[in-house]
């Protein structure tokens, strides 16, 4: 799953820029949620800085994993990508066209990007049958209800739910895993190119999760899809992703291939995150907590590098300067002053370095 061979590139008639153009490019996305003023209007207006300057790209045919703790902005980013909420600033460029501009109106964009939500129950209308839920999307875009239902039945079969048995049922009659399959079918009904999976398997039992993950793999191959896979479960992300993006407190702190990020993390946060992954090996015991304390408040993030309050390697300069995102190797970058030349950061001898072996960090 993590090999670097080019993923399937079935020739999609809607493809505009060719395989080298990223399918989705996110530029400097910002979204703050203003809070009601606690005092009578005096005092500064505070806001939850959910997404604070996020930039990355999703390449055609890949699975880009997104990891981070709760509150880091993963879900908000997903919703911004879907334009379910509108960003305060920043741009989304889909296959070379700006989303929402005349070249790519929102409605057309919605046909090419779809999302699978975490809560399988609340993402299905309890009063609609399964087949109606799946067929809804196509009917909105002009497909006749007969054709839409046929398509729905095909997709249900495709995701492993026999139409005869499931099409006429209601969501509450299905198990969590079955419902998530329905959600996947629903997302595919519009024949999208990009599918955003926002913690899509997090609520499922492990055995069911494995089945659904394999289903997702098959579908990606058969339909030529691109995935944005958001999860807090590092094992799953490693299993599924080609490249990985790490978020902290509304910002991107590291990006690279799965091998790079998991085997040789550059950012102290990533390293700590990986160390907190529980291992099945009883001989591998973690003696100290890799991350101290709770993540600070997205309303009032720390100055300078946001991670400096919990970083084992923080220095004075870290609380003063915000690090830029620096590429340390081909396709592998991190936002840490240690990698930023001229930042004033003096790397201590025990700083996790390029030479650090995989064994130290990864639990294979």
């Amino acid at each position, binding site marked *: *799953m993590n090999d670097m061979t080019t993923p399937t590139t079935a020739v999609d008639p809607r493809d505009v820029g060719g395989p080298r153009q990223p399918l989705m490019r996110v530029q400097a996305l910002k979204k703050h949620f203003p809070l009601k003023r606690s005092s009578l209007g005096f005092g500064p207006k505070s806001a939850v800085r959910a997404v604070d300057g996020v930039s990355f790209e999703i390449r055609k045919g890949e699975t880009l994993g997104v990891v981070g703790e709760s509150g880091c902005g993963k879900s908000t980013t997903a*919703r911004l990508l*879907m334009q*379910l909420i509108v960003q305060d600033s920043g741009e989304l460029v889909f296959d070379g066209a700006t989303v929402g501009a005349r070249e790519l109106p*929102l*409605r057309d964009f*919605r*046909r090419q990007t*779809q*999302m699978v*939500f975490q*809560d399988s129950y*609340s*993402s*299905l*209308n*309890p*009063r*609609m*049958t399964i087949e109606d*839920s799946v067929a*809804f*999307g196509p009917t*909105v*875009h002009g497909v006749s209800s007969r054709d839409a239902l046929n398509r729905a039945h095909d997709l249900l*079969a*495709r*995701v*492993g*739910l*026999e139409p*005869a*048995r*499931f*099409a*006429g*049922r*209601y969501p*509450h*009659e299905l198990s969590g895993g079955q419902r998530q399959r329905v*959600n996947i079918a*629903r997302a595919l009904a*519009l024949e999208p190119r990009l599918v955003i999976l926002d913690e899509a398997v997090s609520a499922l039992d492990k055995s069911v999760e*494995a*089945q659904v993950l*394999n*289903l997702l*793999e*098959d579908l990606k191959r058969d339909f030529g899809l691109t995935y944005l896979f958001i999860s807090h479960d590092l*094992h799953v992300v490693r*299993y599924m992703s080609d490249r990985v993006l790490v978020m902290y407190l509304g910002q991107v702190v590291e990006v690279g291939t799965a091998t790079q990020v998991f085997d040789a993390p550059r950012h102290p946060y990533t390293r700590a995150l990986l160390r907190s992954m529980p291992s*099945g090996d009883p001989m591998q015991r973690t003696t100290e907590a890799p991350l101290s304390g709770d993540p600070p408040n997205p309303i009032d993030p720390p100055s300078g590098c946001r991670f400096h309050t919990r970083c084992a390697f923080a220095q004075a300069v870290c609380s003063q300067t915000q690090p830029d995102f620096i590429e340390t190797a081909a396709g592998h970058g991190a936002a840490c002053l240690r990698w930023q030349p001229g930042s004033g950061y003096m790397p201590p001898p025990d700083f996790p370095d390029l030479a650090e072996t995989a064994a130290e960090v990864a639990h*294979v």
Partner: protein
Amino acid sequence: MSATITSTTRPAPSAPLQAVRSRSHGANVLRRLLRNPVAMTAATIILLLILVAIFAPWIMPADPFATSMFKRLRPVGTPGYPLGTDELGRDLLSRLMLGGRLSLFMGIAPVIMAFVIGSALGILAGYAGGKVNTVIMRCIDVLYAFPSVLLAIALSGALGAGITNALISLTVVFVPQIARIAESVTTQVRRSDYVDAARASGAPALTIVRRHVFGNVIGPIFVYATSLISVSMILASGLSFLGLGVKPPQPEWGLMLNTLRTAIYSQPLIAALPGVLIFVTSVSFNMLADGLRTAMEVKQ
């Protein structure tokens, strides 16, 4: 860690291959309601009253408008007048039967109108959110700030007596209550993931409201509205009691309570009779509304 589990596109085991169509939510609610003995008794009573009211002109034993100064305030059981006569000598049974028409109408019609108007306003406010919501709900709040009896009487008093005016004022009293519930439920539904998913599929707002929001909010609003019918009946007959609703000589239970007040000392039973009917109808509607609420509450 990366255990290979074979791809599971093969269907889950067992079960014969026949098309299954589950019962819809509405059908389930109905089934549960039909199994509720209290609710069914109430429904039967209401149905009987409605039927009697509709067919009153044909099944009345006597002319409800025929006055007679000799036959005033005859007691129950008088031959030819099974329930006695009122203060103007008219047959009470016939007047009660015919009176049912207006009483039931004035109880049910305002609620229906308020249901339509209130739901529309509430769903609009709930789905649109923002300024639209604020404007609509503030106006609603001003009306809601009156105790309902006072508002009904104030409006009726200002507009004057008469059925139309009474209907208008009662509708105005109930619209805010229904609109509030509608807005509250719609706001909740609006936040759910399936509405987001519908938005994500590019559907226009009206389609989303029609296919996703409506079906999920109409239930609770409807249940609330049915619980208002008994209140409406009491209020409507109260207006007539005060002389603000139906005008004499039209028979209507509330109005009859008013005109029969003089009979309290001589024929107390006759004087109380119209109220019994109002009470019975009101209790029945309440029981039915309770049953409906219970039927809807069961988590599927």
